[in-house]
Each structure stands twice: as structure tokens, then as C-alpha cells.
């Protein structure tokens, strides 16, 4: 069965901290995505990657960076967390259909 896992379900960080969110997929997909989801705003694309070491900005990349050193792993980095980055973060891999991970609920205090 297809699986996308995320390193944490819940995370609480302080303003200014560097935050790493990890995502791993076992489907050998080339395409991976990071979204954030906020009430009323839906899913917004932060960054995506078509291949190892490749990355493309999505619709809201400011304040974020990503890393894809291996095909199965795609990391989202918040360089200096701020309170407006409190959100649900969803990783997905894709081959036509998006397969989502369980999400990480990040709270920045």
C-alpha cells in the first residue's frame, strides 16, 4: 500500500527557531510537494520537487526552503519560525494523483 509519512504529528516551536519537517514516501515517485492548510484558505502550495536536488517555488514560498537529497525524502525548512507560520503542513507525492501524508500540526509561540 502506498505510504507517505511525516516525521511529527504535532510540533510546538518558539519564534525564531529553525524548524525541520521531514517527509518520506515509499512509492518511488519523482514528484513531491509541501502544502500548508489553513481554515478558509484551503491547501496552498509552498514548494515542490520533480527530482532529486530539484526544487521549484510554489505559491507561498516566502519564509520556507526545502531539501531533496534522496528521491524518497523531501524536507521543509522554516529558517526562522514566526507565529504566522502556525498551520497544518501536508506533504504529498504524486503520480497523477496526490498521495498525502498525515500532516504535521505546527504551532509557533
Amino acid at each position, binding site marked *: 500500500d502506498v505510504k507517505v509519512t511525516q516525521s511529527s504529528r504535532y510540533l510546538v516551536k518558539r519564534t525564531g527557531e529553525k524548524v525541520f519537517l521531514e517527509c518520506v514516501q515509499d512509492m518511488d515517485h519523482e514528484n513531491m510537494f509541501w502544502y500548508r492548510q489553513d481554515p478558509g484558505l*484551503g491547501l496552498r502550495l509552498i514548494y515542490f520537487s520533480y527530482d532529486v536536488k530539484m526544487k521549484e517555488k510554489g505559491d507561498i514560498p516566502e519564509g520556507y526552503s526545502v531539501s531533496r537529497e534522496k528521491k524518497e525524502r523531501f524536507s521543509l525548512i522554516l529558517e526562522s519560525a514566526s507565529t504566522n507560520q502556525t498551520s497544518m503542513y501536508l506533504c504529498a507525492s504524486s503520480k497523477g*494523483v496526490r498521495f*498525502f501524508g*498525515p500532516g504535521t500540526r505546527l504551532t509557533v509561540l
Partner: protein
Amino acid sequence: SQKIEQNSEALNIQEGKTATLTCNYTNYSPAYLQWYRQDPGRGPVFLLLIRENEKEKRKERLKVTFDTTLKQSLFHITASQPADSATYLCALVSKYNFNKFYFGSGTKLNVKP
């Protein structure tokens, strides 16, 4: 750019009835349209896909229609059950870039016993 509209108000229906959810879009027709189910605190899960040249698709109790003239997709759950209660998202896939998805904000469905 593409804009997707789903009813932000929750849909409350009685068990056994048919639930109908709407997804409207602006601008150009997508290559295809997908529907996802999302439970609270979880990631969305893919349900059904319908292509631009298809009018209707079925899977068990689920039915999706696609009207490119109205720029609308309808998602039906027949004989609804309390376990169908969730938020349902539609996603349009650009015909110019199959990796470009436009997600709606979702409609919450509550099925009461």
C-alpha cells in the same frame, strides 16, 4: 489564474439520503478533476477522478459528474452513512501542466443518524 469554489457552509443531511457537493471553477477547463476526502487532523485521501471528456464516473456509492459548459462538477454520495462525514475537496488539474493542481477549500459533510 484558476479559481475553485466549493460551498464553505457545512452540508447536513440525514442518513440514507443522497449528499450532493458542488465544485465550480473559473477560466479554462482542466485536463481532469479529482475529489478527495479529508478527515479531521488527517491528510486528504483520493477518491475519484473524472476527465474533461467524461460526463460521469461512478465508484460504489460515489458518483461524479463534470459539466464543462457550466464549469461545474457535482459529487454525489448515495445512501449516505454517518461514516461518510468528512470534508470533501475538489482539485482541478491543469491541462497545460499535469503537476499543477488547484484545490478548493472543501465542503464539510455531516451525516446524521
